[in-house]
C-alpha cells in the first residue's frame, strides 16, 4: 500500500461543541493507484485529506505512507512526498503573489536550485503559456488558476497527489480540461491519486476504487467495475448514483 488510512477519526472542539467530522474511516491506495472519496457536503471527505496532510487533528487511528506511520508535524520530506490541490482556485493562490512567486516559494523552502527552469517546466507541464508567469491570480481565469495550483503541487515532484474537489468550482467545459490534464499528469509521472468529489461521474472517470462516505463514516467501498454494473449494496450509494444521472423526466 502506498497510502493506508486505518480507523481514522477526526474531532473538532471540546465538550458540547465537539464535532466528530470523521469516524473510523479506513482505506488503502496502491502505488500509482487512484482512489476516490465520494459523499455529499459535510460527509467528512475533505477532512480525511486534510488529516492526511496534518492540516486537521487526528484523534485516533493511523495514517501510513509506504508502510511508515506519519504523525505530528509534517517534515520537509513529507512535503516532497505528498501534495494537495485545493477545491477553490480563487482561495488557494496568494492574492499578492505572482504565479512566479507562488511556484518559486516551495523551491526556496526546499533549497532547490535551478528555480528559473523548474518554474518554466512546471508551467509548461500544466499547459500554461510562459506569458502567465508574472501575472497575479486576479489576472487569471478559474481554470488557469487551478492549473497554477496543480503546477504548485507538482513542482516538488511528489508521489502522492491529494485532490480536494479540484473541479467543482469550475464550469463544465473547464472541468473536463482540468480532469484530462490530471489524467495525463498521473500517467506521465506515475502519481498516486486520492480524489475527493461529490460527483460520482467525475470519480468514476478518474478512479479505480472509491469509498462512499456519509456523515463522517465510510458506507461502502466499490471498484470501477462494480460501479459500472451498478452492483451497489447500500441505499445511500444507490441514491447518489441516481443523483449523478441527472434529472429524470
Amino acid at each position, binding site marked *: 500500500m502506498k497510502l493506508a488510512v486505518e480507523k481514522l477519526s477526526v474531532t473538532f472542539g471540546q465538550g458540547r461543541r465537539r464535532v466528530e467530522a470523521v469516524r473510523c474511516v479506513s482505506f488503502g491506495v496502491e502505488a500509482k493507484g487512484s482512489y476516490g472519496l465520494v459523499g455529499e457536503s459535510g460527509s467528512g471527505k475533505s477532512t480525511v485529506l486534510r488529516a492526511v496532510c496534518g492540516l486537521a487533528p487526528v484523534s485516533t487511528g493511523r495514517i501510513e505512507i509506504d508502510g511508515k506511520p506519519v504523525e505530528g508535524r509534517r517534515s520537509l520530506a513529507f512535503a516532497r512526498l505528498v501534495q494537495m490541490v485545493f477545491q477553490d482556485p480563487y482561495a488557494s493562490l*496568494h492574492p499578492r503573489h505572482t504565479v512566479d512567486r507562488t511556484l518559486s516559494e516551495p523551491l526556496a523552502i526546499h533549497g532547490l536550485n535551478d528555480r528559473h527552469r523548474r518554474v518554466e517546466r512546471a508551467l509548461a507541464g500544466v499547459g500554461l503559456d510562459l506569458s502567465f508567469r508574472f501575472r497575479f491570480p486576479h489576472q487569471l481565469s478559474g481554470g488557469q488558476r487551478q492549473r497554477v495550483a496543480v503546477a*504548485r503541487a507538482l513542482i516538488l515532484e511528489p508521489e502522492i497527489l491529494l485532490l480536494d474537489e479540484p473541479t467543482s468550482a469550475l464550469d463544465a467545459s473547464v472541468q473536463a480540461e482540468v480532469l484530462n490534464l490530471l489524467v495525463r499528469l498521473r500517467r506521465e509521472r506515475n502519481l498516486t491519486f486520492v480524489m475527493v468529489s461529490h460527483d460520482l461521474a467525475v470519480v468514476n472517470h478518474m478512479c479505480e476504487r472509491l469509498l462512499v462516505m456519509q456523515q463522517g463514516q465510510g458506507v461502502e467501498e466499490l471498484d470501477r467495475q462494480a460501479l459500472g454494473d451498478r452492483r451497489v449494496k447500500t441505499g445511500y450509494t444507490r441514491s447518489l448514483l441516481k443523483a449523478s444521472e441527472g434529472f429524470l423526466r
Partner: protein
Amino acid sequence: MGPEDAPRPGIRAWLTDDVPQSRLQARCVQAYLAWRRLAQNWLAMVGLSIVLGLILMAIFAPLLATHPPYEQNLQDRLLPPFSAGHWLGTDEFGRDLWSRIVYGSRISLTIVALVAVTAPLFGLTIGTAAGFFGGIADNLLMRLTDIFLAFPRLILALALVAALGPGIENAILAIALTAWPPYARVARAETITLRNADYISAIRLQGAGPPRIILGHIVPLCLSSVIVRVTLDMAGIILTAAGLGFLGLGAQPPLPEWGLMISSGRKFLFDQWWVATVPGLAIFIVSLGFNLLGDGLRDVLDPRSAPR
C-alpha cells in the same frame, strides 16, 4: 492586429503591460495602477501635496526661512503678521514666526517618521504572531495589548515622560509606546481571517515554517490596512507631540516645536493672537493633509471598500 493594438513604446506601455516579463515589472504595474486610482481622488491629492509640501519644507528649511529660528530681537517683539520682514509676525522674543514654523516642520516630521516606523512594526509583529499562533501566545500578547489600550494615550505618554524626563526623544518614545496597540489589533484580526485560508494551508503543506508564513504571506496582506491606519493616525501623533510640547513635557524651549510655540503664545492670546494661531494653523493644515491622504489610501488599498 489593428494599429491600436500595436505595442506602444516607452515607460507608460511598460507600466501598463498585461504580460509582465519580470517580478519587478509585475510589481511596478500594480503600483502604477494603484497610483492611477489614487490620483483620481482629488482630495487625496490635496492631502498628498500638503504632506509632500511639509517634507520639502523640512528638507529646504535653511533656504525657505527668512531669519535664523533662534535669533532674538527684542525691538521687534510681537509684531503682527504682514509687517515688514516678518510676514507671519514675531513672537515675544522678536523671533520670526515663519522661520520657526519652517524649522519646526523638521521636528514634527522627525516625530512622525520615527513613530510611523517603530509603532506599526512593533504592532504588526505582536499582532500577526498572536493571530497566527493562537492559544496561549494569543491570550498573553492580546492581554498585554489590552492593558496598553486601556490607558488614555496622553496620560500614559505623560507618565513615561515624567519618569524618563522631558525632551523630544522621550516624547517620541512615549508616543511610539502608546501608539502600537491599535496596529496589533488590526494585524491580529486580519491574521485570524487569513490563517485558515487555503493559500496559507498550501504553503504550510509545502513545509514552510512560521517565520516564512508570517513574513512572506501574512504580513503583505495586513500591510495595506496598517498603512491606512498609520496615515490616519499621523494627525493624532502630531497632535499628541504638540500636546506634550504644550504641557512642557515634550520639546523644550527654545526648540521651534509647534505645540511649544502655541503654549508660549497662550499668554498673549487676547492681544497678540497670531503668536499662538500661526503654529496652530500649521498643525491643523498638516493634520488635515495626513487625514485626506489616509482616506484616499484607504479607498485604494482597502480591499473591503468597493471600487467606484
